[in-house]
């Protein structure tokens, strides 16, 4: 379910680091909690994002959620399909539904993130609610 090569945050974002850049999205768990996603707001290419600060929002019919950046860096790409087809975040959150690609400022920021196994453990603990 959760790709091994990704890292995860407690706020249910994922990041796939590839050298000095990384893709960011929200997790399967997050999209399921939100339900039908109808609107995604992401920063423009060239803007700066800061670790643990909102980089954009994902809106479903019933709720709006901030997407918190797992890392600090500069946005170098946004998913071109996501504005016209926000439902991609529902259907393929870890793939076609990615949100932005950033150039990392400090790679060591990723060290505190969870691995796939740790994230699944984290979800299990949280599912008591």
């Amino acid at each position, binding site marked *: 379910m959760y790709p091994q090569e990704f890292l995860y945050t407690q706020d249910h974002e994922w990041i796939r680091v590839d050298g000095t850049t990384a893709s960011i999205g929200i997790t399967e768990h997050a999209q399921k909690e939100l339900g039908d996603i*109808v*609107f995604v707001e992401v920063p423009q290419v060239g803007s700066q994002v800061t670790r643990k600060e909102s980089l954009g929002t994902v809106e479903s*019919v019933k709720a709006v959620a901030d997407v918190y950046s797992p890392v600090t860096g500069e946005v170098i790409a946004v998913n071109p399909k996501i504005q016209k087809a926000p439902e991609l975040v529902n259907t393929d959150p870890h793939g076609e539904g990615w949100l932005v690609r950033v150039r990392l400022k400090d790679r060591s920021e990723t060290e505190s993130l969870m691995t796939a196994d740790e994230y699944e453990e984290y979800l299990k603990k949280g599912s008591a609610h």
Partner: protein
Amino acid sequence: MTTSTGIESKRTALNAAHRRAGARMVEFGGWDMPVEYSGIVEEHLAVRKRAGLFDVSHMGEIEVRGPKALALLQYLTSNDVSRLKAFQAQYSALMNPQGSAVDDCVVHRLGETEFFLCVNAANTDKDFAYILEHNPFAAGSDVEIRNVSKCYSQLALQGPLAAEILQALAETDLHSLKYYTFRGSVCCGVSGWLARTGYTGEDGFEFYFAPSESESVWQMLLEKGKPYGLLPAGLGARNTLRLEAAYPLYGNELDDETTLLEANLGWITKWDKGDFLGREALAGQRESGVKKKLVGFEMLDRGIGRDGYPIWVEGKPCGRVTSGSYAPFLKKNIGLAYVPSQHAGPGQEFEIEIRGKRARARQVPLPFYKRPRA
């Protein structure tokens, strides 16, 4: 499951069935209710195009009977109850002296001296206490008021195919059951009140019956409807459907400080029926004009103006969104809001503050959606 107040949520007789069906459950008005099964958009579209089945057993039922039942309801509600014949229903409001709604409700007339009110779940206890407290007649002999909510499950079968699906299971000719009428009927082998009413903007039915029969009625309707594309639908779709139809929701568009005239409910305010609670206040407001007015809007800029977001006109905050959402059938971002009367009217624009940024919206005529007449 507990509410934020720590009080255990109430459960309808179908709670286990919803959980088995994989519904996402939420607390609503003190009840643990399904918000969605397969997804709000899919359920919403099923109701607009085919049919959907809702468990609305959380709704309350209050019985009023006796020689003074009609007089009591004429005094406490804004619509003209005397216009109802037996087995007719009407949308109305339980009033306070300020001209605002204690609740909105549907009044059903069972006979000369017998009625039942369908009221909002969260307001049931409040309404019941309010009616008792404001009853000027002798309780018991003149009029008997009972909260019979526990005696009923209520299912809503809604959508253009609802009649076709239900006809095979109902011992009533549905052609003769007109909009806002009801009758005693046997559906799915269970007797109850079958009403041609709903809260979705589509044709449909609401069936009130004994809670012990809930699972079998629910299952039979789902099975019969399956080939027609009927889906179980939750409170999420119920909300987006009623919003497209611009039906008010108590707690959002209506509260005990908003008058019926402000809420566009002049049509259920009957001036010539005699005195009723709030009539004087409303008459005064009719004379002087309303200061604020409920309007519908569509977003022009990107974003959804959601419940509670501030409205700005000419650089000043001057109102709030009461209900705002993506509209799954219209595929637009729409909402309802109160704005000062001088700024109300289709075509006028305002801004909605969405998480610190202002986005433009334009007022449009209501309802947003009207079903095509067959």
